[in-house]
């Protein structure tokens, strides 16, 4: 059983599943905490996320890619370029964000209202909401998910984009 010395993904298949799950969870927590919504693979390699200086352990790039692919499959990651050098990371999937936003809209009786993207994430009214401060890329995908469900429509407004909720 020849294993590359650089390959610390566990040889036991069941254990490897647990390992991958643990890494995915760690990546999402890390990005949520540091409010990072996008990263390049190079950055990731050197960040404390995959390079633990104190423990003297780092996850090699092949394994990092496996972790990232796992996150993509789960809907938490989207590649931003064809060469897979940078990615969008969403600790909540777009559908989940969409649901939260729509719930707020309904709760505050604002169906059939129009918002600019900025209002949604930075307006006073949403200060107490979880999606307050959400980055635009993730927000757009959340709204696109709602659009697919015919609950919203992304429109153009004076100086950018906005959304109408149904």
């Amino acid at each position, binding site marked *: 059983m020849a*294993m590359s*010395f*650089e*390959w*610390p993904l*566990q*040889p*036991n298949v*069941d*254990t490897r599943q*647990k*390992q991958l799950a643990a890494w995915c969870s760690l990546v999402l927590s890390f990005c949520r905490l540091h409010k990072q919504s996008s990263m390049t693979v190079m950055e990731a390699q050197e960040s404390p996320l995959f390079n633990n200086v104190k423990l*003297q*352990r*780092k996850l090699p790039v092949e394994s990092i890619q496996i972790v990232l692919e796992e996150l993509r499959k789960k809907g938490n990651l989207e590649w931003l370029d064809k060469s897979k050098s940078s990615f969008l990371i969403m600790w909540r999937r777009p559908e989940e964000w969409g649901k939260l936003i729509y719930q707020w809209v309904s709760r505050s009786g604002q169906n059939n209202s129009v918002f600019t993207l900025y209002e949604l994430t930075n307006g006073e009214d949403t200060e107490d909401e979880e999606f307050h401060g959400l980055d635009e890329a993730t927000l757009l995908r959340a709204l696109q998910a709602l659009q697919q469900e015919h609950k919203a429509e992304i429109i153009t407004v004076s100086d950018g984009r906005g959304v109408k909720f149904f």
Partner: protein
Amino acid sequence: MHRRGVGAGAIAKKKLAENLRLASRPRDTEFLQLPAKYKERGTVLAEDQLAQMSKQLDMFKTNLEEFASKHKQEIRKNPEFRVQFQDMCATIGVDPLASGKGFWSEMLGVGDFYYELGVQIIEVCLALKHRNGGLITLEELHQQVLKGRGKFAQDVSQDDLIRAIKKLKALGTGFGIIPVGGTYLIQSVPAELNMDHTVVLQLAEKNGYVTVSEIKASLKWETERARQVLEHLLKEGLAWLDLQAPGEAHYWLPALFTDLYSQEITAEEAREALP
């Protein structure tokens, strides 16, 4: 205990009936003599003894019932009392957990207590299996069981856990108890662990990991034997492979982590750290 024919008089009647039945078989002449014995030799004496036995049995039954009502609460609430009670039973050759029916479990509720505890133990082990491969220290099991029982439940001691686990073992559920460095590892998944595996687990207890060199140095084994044991532990999901450790591969055992962690931090910190 309220079966038919518990009294001494009924026992005597039963015996007579059986003898009469046997006596009606023409071939067994010895048995023909027995009923005659009864009639000829001291029938009165036998009846006396039987009457005495009957009275004693009744008293015994009353005492048992009194004992049960007096101590039932104590048994459920007090772990120390349970230990002493179990020791006492062992002295007179009684196993209160031997069967689900009968005086001990029904009247004292001892069986219920350990049965419920067994179920809780299985729940904890199942919940943590993904993390430690089915191996857990007695301490961690104890903490988790106490957490699961909540603030108002009865206190449970490590002695209670061991007894419950022994019962689970006897039921063939795949549970095992492995002594390591002053405590025990509880095995809840029927991974095949022989003496070699167990002794390596014990070696790993110090640092939470073990290496081929360490095994060879401490146990004086050949390389191949050490490798086979470690491969097996990996295969059973009990060990994780660390190829980035300085020098040689380290084999980590998550089951031992909480034990290690608790050695380095204070009780207060431990309580705060638990999810």
